[in-house]
């Protein structure tokens, strides 16, 4: 499993020899297999491997990065030379040289072990799962029709060997399983409802059963039919109370706390791509929300989609309290931003593959749960809306103005769920969201995603989550209006 370790070590040595001030090398291999199906029929099966060595150097205060899939001494030496030569060539354009913070770096090997290796489960079993899902889902509605159910079952293994000239040496192996689907339910006189969803976590095929998709998706489809038949227009134009489901809360904290807390974004390094941040360097300690607004990003949650113990700069991982009891508390750092801010890295440097430089990323971001049951959250609402799930969403590049189009949502009257409503939109500022939380549920749920950032764009696996929360005095909109 640790083949190419020698090339990684030699790359670091060679970079030092040719004059780089800092050198790191990372062998990064992603092996994936997937089966795709549509309406119970198999489309095909695929296996792929993406592997190579990434080299990053500091030369004349400029970062140089190079990646090669040619896994020989010559190929890797050329990558080191390319990174060094091109960085030095443009060092004349640089005003602020890049420096890294001093850190206690890891020397470790770790591995996540699957209970059931997905590669050892028969293809018949996997196909039978997809066929059974189609059967149950297509049988579920009474009048509506399931026009399409596309499903993908993916298994992957990520192996990394990392070393740098400051002494880090970390080897890791992380397997993941993912099942995603797109279901379209249609009732010609009423329109369509569409739902994309992904499950993904570190582990093996044991997760497929744990996710209980065969049980819940047919029930979801019945609900979608009901939305088409009975969903009414949401109340708009006046402030009401809104219970936001954990699925939306998870995405909201990822987008409006995790992203704006990335120190590279705060410093403008991603300004032309992922954008800037409403958080400025001097805003630690400023109030952003109520006492219920505590947001944590933690790479060390066992089994989580964003799990790691050392980041891609060799720094040991820990939980980061980004917002704490309503205050901006901590940024996500790599060794460069830590040096700029005069602090230590909190191990947020991640790379999606051998072809990507490590940049600041989230891992598993969630709102800290409170003490309310769902019934207690409801009891406190005289007139409002509960939005359980979403489809459309977006946020501006400073992470201030955000919008979520509700999928499954209900009117609440006198503490009770009433009829379904269709296409409500929560469109509010980050401060309004966190300041309006007056109670949080006690059940913490996580959702899987692929977070995009960087150039070339790097998608990394993450979880985001939280409890259901209650917001006071929010004005809703409707999609398409």
């Amino acid at each position, binding site marked *: 499993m640790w083949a190419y370790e020698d090339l990684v070590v030699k790359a670091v040595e060679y970079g030092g020899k040719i004059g780089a001030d800092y050198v790191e090398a990372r062998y990064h291999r992603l092996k994936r297999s997937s089966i795709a199906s549509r309406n119970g029929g*198999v489309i095909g099966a695929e296996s792929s491997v993406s592997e190579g060595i990434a080299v990053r150097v500091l030369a004349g205060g400029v970062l*140089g990065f190079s990646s090669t899939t040619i896994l020989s001494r010559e190929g890797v030496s050329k990558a080191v030379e390319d990174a060094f030569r091109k960085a030095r060539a443009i060092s004349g354009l640089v005003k602020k040289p890049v420096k890294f913070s001093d850190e206690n770096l890891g020397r470790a090997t770790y591995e996540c072990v699957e209970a059931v290796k997905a590669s050892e489960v028969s293809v018949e079993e996997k196909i039978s799962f997809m066929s059974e899902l189609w059967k149950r889902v297509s049988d579920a509605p009474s009048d509506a029709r399931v026009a399409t159910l596309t499903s993908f079952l993916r298994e992957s293994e990520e192996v990394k060997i990392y070393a740098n000239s400051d002494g880090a040496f970390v080897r890791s192996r992380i397997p993941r399983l993912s099942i995603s689907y797109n279901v379209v339910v249609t009732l010609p006189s009423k329109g369509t409802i569409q739902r994309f969803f992904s499950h993904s976590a570190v582990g093996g095929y044991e997760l497929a059963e744990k996710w209980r998709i065969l049980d819940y998706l047919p029930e979801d489809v019945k609900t979608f039919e009901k939305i088409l038949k009975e969903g009414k227009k949401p109340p708009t134009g006046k402030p009401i109370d809104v219970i936001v489901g954990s699925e939306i809360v998870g995405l909201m904290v990822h987008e409006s706390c995790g992203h704006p807390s990335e120190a590279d974004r705060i410093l403008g390094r991603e300004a032309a791509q992922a954008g800037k941040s409403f958080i400025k360097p001097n805003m630690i300690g400023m109030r952003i929300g109520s006492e219920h607004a505590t947001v944590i990003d933690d790479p060390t949650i066992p089994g989580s989609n964003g799990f790691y113990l050392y980041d891609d700069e060799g720094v040991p991982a820990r939980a980061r309290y980004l917002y704490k009891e309503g205050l901006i508390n901590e940024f996500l750092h790599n060794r460069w931003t830590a040096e700029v801010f005069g602090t230590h890295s909190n191990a947020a440097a991640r790379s999606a593959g051998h072809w990507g430089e490590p940049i600041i990323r989230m891992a598993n971001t969630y709102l800290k749960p409170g003490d309310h049951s769902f019934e207690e959250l409801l009891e406190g609402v005289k007139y409002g809306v509960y939005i359980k799930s979403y489809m459309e969403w977006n946020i501006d590049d400073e992470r201030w103005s955000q919008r979520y189009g509700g999928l499954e949502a209900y009117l609440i009257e006198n503490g009770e769920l009433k009829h379904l409503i269709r296409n409500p939109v929560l469109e509010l500022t980050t401060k309004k969201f966190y300041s309006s939380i007056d109670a949080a549920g006690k059940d913490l749920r996580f959702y899987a995603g692929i977070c995009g950032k960087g150039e070339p764009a790097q998608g990394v696996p993450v979880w985001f989550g939280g409890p259901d929360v209650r917001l006071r005095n929010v004005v809703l909109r409707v999609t398409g209006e």
Partner: protein
Amino acid sequence: MKEELLSLVNGAVKRAIELGFDEAAVLSVYRESTMVKFANGEPSIVQSWSSNQMSIYVSKEKRLLGTSAPASSLEEAYRMLANLGRISAKMPPSILYAPLPEPRSVEPLSGLVDRKALEAVSDPSQASEVIVEAVQRRDIESFAGMLQISYSVKALATNTGSELAEDSTEVQAYVRAFAGEGSGQWAYGSRTLDLSKLEEMAETASDLAYRSRRQENISPGKYNILLSPMVAGNLLNYVAWMATGSSVLLGQSIFINKKPGDTVASEKLTLMDVPRQPQLPGSTAFDDEGIPTYNKPIIERGYLKTLLHNTKTAAKLGAKSTGNAGLVFPRVWALSVEPGEMSFEELLEETGNGLVVTNNWYTRLQNYVEGIFSTITRDAAFIVKNGEIVGAARKFRIADTLPNLLRNISSLGKELYDIYWWEVEIPTRTPYILAKNIGTSKHTA
């Protein structure tokens, strides 16, 4: 390099047939690429890539299987193929199966390689300096951006006898400039390195930033909106992707219930897939099944003209391949919008009272079948009154449906721009496009 790659892909096809597969198509892409990324007015990193990735498509008794790996890990790819071969016996035939096509004569496309671009792959410093200088001609506070220059060689072989190779260069660049409350972003994509085009791109970004440095709020509602080529490119990328046979089959398209000949847009709109336009990245002479490419309208004067197919989606939907094959699903090569006759000033006049949106991001859909979407403005947006720009607007969303947006296109500019960046992943040549009576939205508090 072409000969070397052809030998590699031919060898892989032979090996796949020896492993017991009925059909094989192998595509290998060698790529050398350099990127200079800018932030806070200076380079933040220089990145280089050297890769040779091989993708192998095989079928056995109508079961579709695929693998991809770096060419240096070919033995691993064969091991994966052999394993796929074993498991395929337990799979039912693919619902998308269609035989690989017989080889056809492919007319090579000239002008895909530019010597200046080729040289700049190993030294992008001059082009970088041009961008840094040009963007600072306006009174801006800072800028960020990216310049990427690449050289690629691709080779394809199939067991039916296709043996094709092609090399190309590609330039992609964008700049985002900041001034006061404002920002401006512009992008450029080409097969050739033309420094004057990079200057133009950088100047446009800084000009937009400068002109939007003071902003005011607008009220959400219906507006006439003049979409810049950046915005038109983004939204038409979605429309074109929805026109692929796979998007229709997988339930991700506004064209699911449409057929060629149906009206789907204003008669002003003609949207083409243009793989044989060699100035645009994405251009190519042949697809991943070895079929010659050709330029074709997706939407012609408002009518849905053709969906984009490979042999598999074509067979499933009763059509013919349009030369848009990826190895499994079809792809869009490059887009071109037929220009109108109006100057920018005439478009403003036609807008009357409305908005100009110069850049957007995060286009997301509530429902792909109905095309309900919203997208948020990212950089300069201008307020138009009586045909003249009178100020800049703070961020808001365009929130409507794609079918409505397409139907409400009323005018197009005569000047064309080649756009290629994060939010316009399919290289797109388009003018400014005016759409009337389009919904906008804003946060409520």
